[in-house]
């Protein structure tokens, strides 16, 4: 679907844990026509300060409703958090390329780091009926869960936490390695989204084990539609850049240079 610009009514907007907000909006077309891994470009108000939109992954959709989950980092997300049910928020989307679904015989492993879980939530909705899939999530501690504990449970998400306050004590990539060991005899495909160090660790694991993986990347954006060249990420082969908004945000992990300074 070609992207559209929609003023969407906010159905609810609540803080689910410190500085993490869930906003449900009513769209005309975006929710029903988007695919897992795509994103929306969100205007933070009707003015021009801050100037740019904020890219946010499309979370779980239900009919015309779409869920955004975001962390308040700076001024733009602060303004988004202040918006109330009944007000309107302006979205441009759906934007970017979705995750490619696994082939018939493949087992999907979803690996989220913190707020990076969002596109994996909608991906898991697509997969759960039909495909064997395992959903891993790394967080710093139990009070920084990006989604409510109920949803973690419902979706059967296996959690790792840095401090052991929830689930496995350690990194989500440790969980990933044991999962890969368990599934040694199966073809697997990894779907990742999270902070750069996590994505880099996944890449190392995938290279070592020759497992295919797609990861979603985050870089600052201007237009969001491939017109301005702001969102460049270095190609793995070094010959130039790819655009996160148009060629991504989901990339084959082997196509992009994830060394620090490559993507940011």
């Amino acid at each position, binding site marked *: 679907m070609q992207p559209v610009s929609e003023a969407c009514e906010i159905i609810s907007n609540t803080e689910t844990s410190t500085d993490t907000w869930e906003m449900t909006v009513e769209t005309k077309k975006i929710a029903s026509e988007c695919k897992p891994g795509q994103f929306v470009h969100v205007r933070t108000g009707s003015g*021009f300060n801050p*100037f*740019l939109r904020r890219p946010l992954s499309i979370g779980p959709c239900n009919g015309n409703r779409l869920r955004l989950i975001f962390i308040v980092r700076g001024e733009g997300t602060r303004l988004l958090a202040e918006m109330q049910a009944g007000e309107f928020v302006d979205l441009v989307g759906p934007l970017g390329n979705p995750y490619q679904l696994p082939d018939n015989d493949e087992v999907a492993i979803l690996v989220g780091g913190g707020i990076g879980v969002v596109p994996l939530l909608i991906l898991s909705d697509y997969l759960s009926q039909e495909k064997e899939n395992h959903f891993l999530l790394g967080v710093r501690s139990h009070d920084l869960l990006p989604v409510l504990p109920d949803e973690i449970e419902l979706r059967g998400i296996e959690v790792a936490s840095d401090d052991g306050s929830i689930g496995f004590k350690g990194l989500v990539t440790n969980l990933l390695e044991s999962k890969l060991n368990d599934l040694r005899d199966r073809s697997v495909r990894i779907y990742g989204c999270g902070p750069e160090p996590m994505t880099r660790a996944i890449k190392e694991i995938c290279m070592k084990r020759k497992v295919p993986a797609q990861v979603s990347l985050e870089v600052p954006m201007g*237009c969001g539609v491939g*017109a*301005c*060249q*702001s969102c460049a990420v270095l190609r793995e082969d070094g010959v130039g*850049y790819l655009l996160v908004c148009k060629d991504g945000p989901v990339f084959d992990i082997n196509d992009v240079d994830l060394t620090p300074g490559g993507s940011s």
Partner: protein
Amino acid sequence: MNMSITMAEMSFRTPLLTGSGTFGYGDEFKSLVDYNTLGGIVTKSVSLEPRAGNKPPRICETSGGIINSIGLANPGVDSFIANKVSLLPIDETRVFLSVVGNSVEDFLAVVDKFETIADISGYELNVSCPNVKRGGLEIGGDQDAVAAIVKAVRAITKRFISVKLTPNQTSIAPMAQAAVDAGADALTLVNTLIGMAIDTEKQRPLLGNVTGGFSGPPLKPVALAKVWQAAQVVDVPIWASGGMVNGIDCIEFLLAGASGLQLGSVLFTDPFSPQRVLNEMEEYCSHHGVAEISELVGALKV
């Protein structure tokens, strides 16, 4: 109300254009923008050789505006002709090719390749990009260099030529005069200011390239001064570029002497802005008894 405007014997449906580099090659926004609201578009600058662009991050926010350090990333003229020309919205609106280069020869080569192929309305010569080390900015401050480029391009094309100048100079009037004397049909004022922003937590610049081009609302007063100063000395039409986000901003530029109005960064925030801005300008006109938008050009009372 008549929103059309004529410049150098060419008529434009509206005074609104898109600023180079903010609207790609015209196809990226096609599901979001109504071309009927535009008098024309200016493409992302095209150079002779492909350019990968600068090290990321390439965009950041600061002081109510944005800074970009794209570095003129573009596929180069040959690839552009092979892959992009067919996407240009030539049937929908006027298209102006923005051309950039390091030398007179670069500009000539790009224009030469374009002369025969596509039905574009003209060229915008970008002699003012702050994001490339060679060419670009140094050329932008050098009257002789600018004049040489314009004169050379003038000699090989009958098409409309606008010359896009930098605000990073002490006095715009002599540069404007030089560009017009060399044969420019119009001037585009202005490109971005050189700016910089720092992440004090990381103690690093926010841009991979350290400095970049500062655009958006904070650029408006600077652009307005340059448009007005240039309009005092040259007779060719002026295309304003710099910080316009609404109809009133656009009216300011018309009053100061601009005939064309390039929407740039605002397209990122509000891709619907051409339609909105046009409505806001029409509203102004009906409130002020303006029948033809062209009446406002240079109508400032000083």
